[in-house]
């Protein structure tokens, strides 16, 4: 099957090797016989209803975020509509912040967000930098872990009743104190974890692919054929150990 990924502002938001996430999605789809087509989405592009099965937005420095935030927010209504029709999305770091309602930077200026996730972010004094380990349960009865690296000055506050992506086992998470990281709303995920995230957490790549396939077929997310993931497992274990031994410290 052919899946279409809308990669939002790839020239601007790519600071933490975001193309690693795209490479993992593309290869793991191909190994199951699906073709993933990645279409860049920039200021001059339109999001046509039903066109994209999955959206991806990566991280950027403050300057890049400032440069593209208005153009990204202008795509907000179309993105919201696409998600209501069942498209999936993954937003990482700076993109995660801009998927909320707003991001207030250190000088007090507010960047508009797209409002796909029920949260807002305010820049803090100290950067939260280090390895992170999360426990999450995207599907009931299937507990999993996510290992990655965070580097953010923003403190992200989830609205009442919003669902975090995971519980922090080691690391800072959304704000360094709530004990939670990321946010999930249906098929839309946001997180500070890069590393990049998907190579060492292949189960999440497969979850996203299954959601994208469900959008394409209009059915339920399919069970994907398992792949040999020994290297991925090793990389995950090392990253998780790093988080346990040195995550969450200023």
């Amino acid at each position, binding site marked *: 099957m052919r899946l279409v990924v809308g990669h939002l502002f790839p020239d601007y938001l790519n600071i933490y090797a975001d*193309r*690693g996430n795209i490479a993992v999605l593309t290869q793991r789809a191909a190994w199951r016989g699906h073709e993933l087509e990645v279409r860049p989405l920039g200021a001059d592009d339109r999001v046509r209803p039903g066109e994209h099965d999955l959206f991806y937005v990566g991280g950027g420095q403050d300057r*890049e975020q400032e440069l593209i935030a208005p153009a990204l927010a202008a795509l907000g209504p179309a993105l919201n509509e696409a998600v209501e029709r069942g498209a999936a999305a993954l937003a990482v770091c700076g993109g995660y912040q801009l998927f909320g309602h707003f991001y207030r930077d250190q000088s007090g200026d507010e960047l508009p967000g797209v409002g796909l996730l029920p949260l807002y972010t305010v820049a803090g004094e100290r*950067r939260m930098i280090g390895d992170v380990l999360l426990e999450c349960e995207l599907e009931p009865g299937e507990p999993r872990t996510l290992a990655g690296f965070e580097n953010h000055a923003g403190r992200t506050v989830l609205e009442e009743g919003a669902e975090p992506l995971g519980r922090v086992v080691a690391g800072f998470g959304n704000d360094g104190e709530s004990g939670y990281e990321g946010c999930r709303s249906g098929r839309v995920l946001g997180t500070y974890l890069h590393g*990049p995230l998907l*190579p060492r957490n292949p189960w999440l790549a497969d979850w996203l692919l299954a959601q994208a396939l469900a959008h394409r077929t209009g059915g339920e997310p399919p069970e994907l054929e398992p792949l*040999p993931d020994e*290297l991925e497992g090793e*990389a995950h274990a*090392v990253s998780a150990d790093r988080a346990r031994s040195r995550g969450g410290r200023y």
Partner: protein
Amino acid sequence: MRGPLALEIGLARVAAGLSRLAGTGGGTTLPGKLLWKLDPSAVDRLAARLPRGSALVSATNGKTTTCAMAVEILEPSVRLAHNRAGANLVSGVATALVEARDAELGLFEVDEAALPEVASRLSPRAVLLGNLFRDQLDRYGELELLAGRWRQLARDLPPEAVLVANGDDPQLGEIAMERPGSVVFGLDDPRHASPTLQHAADSKWCVRCGTPYDYAAAYIGHLGDYRCPACGHARPALDVVGREIELNGLESASFELLTPEGSRRVELGVPGLYNVYNAVAAAALARALGTPLDSIQAGLQGFSAAFGRFERIAIGDRQLLTLLIKNPAGANEVVRTLVAGGAPSLLLVALNDEIADGRDVSWIWDVDFEPLLGRLERLIATGERAAELALRFKYAGLPENAIEVVPSLEAALDRGLELTPPAGELTALPTYTAMLALRDLVARRGFVKPYWEEAA
């Protein structure tokens, strides 16, 4: 506390000797750390004793090599104090000052983040700003913050100091334009430009108005001949230029060095466009310090290689070629140079994640390793994050059965040498601490001296 300088220096020198005796390292930073603890202002006073002042060199990429080239140029005519072995924080500079007994001129490689502090203490007569790329964001924070600190540093320099800056880097060109009398260097040879901006290019947007630059030529990452189509911000006029560049694979490079005093053909014994940048930078600095053009040419041509950056070591009947990788822009140039020299079929890549390597290893996904895949038959992935590195190549399309994950560096080196035919060469791309460890392994087997004895 402010003590008698001679006593403090004496104590610090004893500490360096003890450190070496104890075998805990080269004592490359310990004396400076001790001096720093005893009396931070002693560093300023030590530097003030240098009759011909100090020059500082900083950059994300190439600062060790540029500094080593400048040493080669200057050493015949002036007694230098300089920090060996990349000990480039305040403590390393302080150590070099303690140990330089009768030096006339200080020439120091300085870490990007430490540069403002070192510059304010040393009151240098020249500061060289080489380039700024994304590197160790976990340690330095965002690139813009670092650029902002450098801009302030340039404003705070004493009026008689000379700023030497790479005009091909938009951030640094802007800093140079703010300071009249700056010496601006760069390259002019569009034959060596990349067809497109590399993935890892950083300062792609106009530093003044945010519009993407138009590049007449982009040489390395965002370094090149840029102009903003909206506000007109463009590369400043170049004072010292490298042009008519010839690259000879993995062996050497040559270029014409053009200065206001005339031009010389320079034959370098090290390869790659990045080394041409380093050489032009070293030439611009030496010129700012009053060195004649003939001495600059002779020094550059006499230069071999800075430690671990491009180093061939004979191990029995085989050779080990070591090329340091530490961030996307630098690693891309290493890959480009390897490919130009006929890419290897066997490659050892060592990824560590200590502080000096960057604890965040995501940068390996921004390196364009792909041009190596055409000829690569076997990858030995080693170091603390060997598995992550293996994934980088697996998802680039290298078959899993062509990848060996050997986390132990020693086992990986042995495996690599075993797979190298007699008289053949093993190519190794280590990150910083992996490079030190690899060199240490080779030294223990008696093939190379410890780094504090010979490194430049």
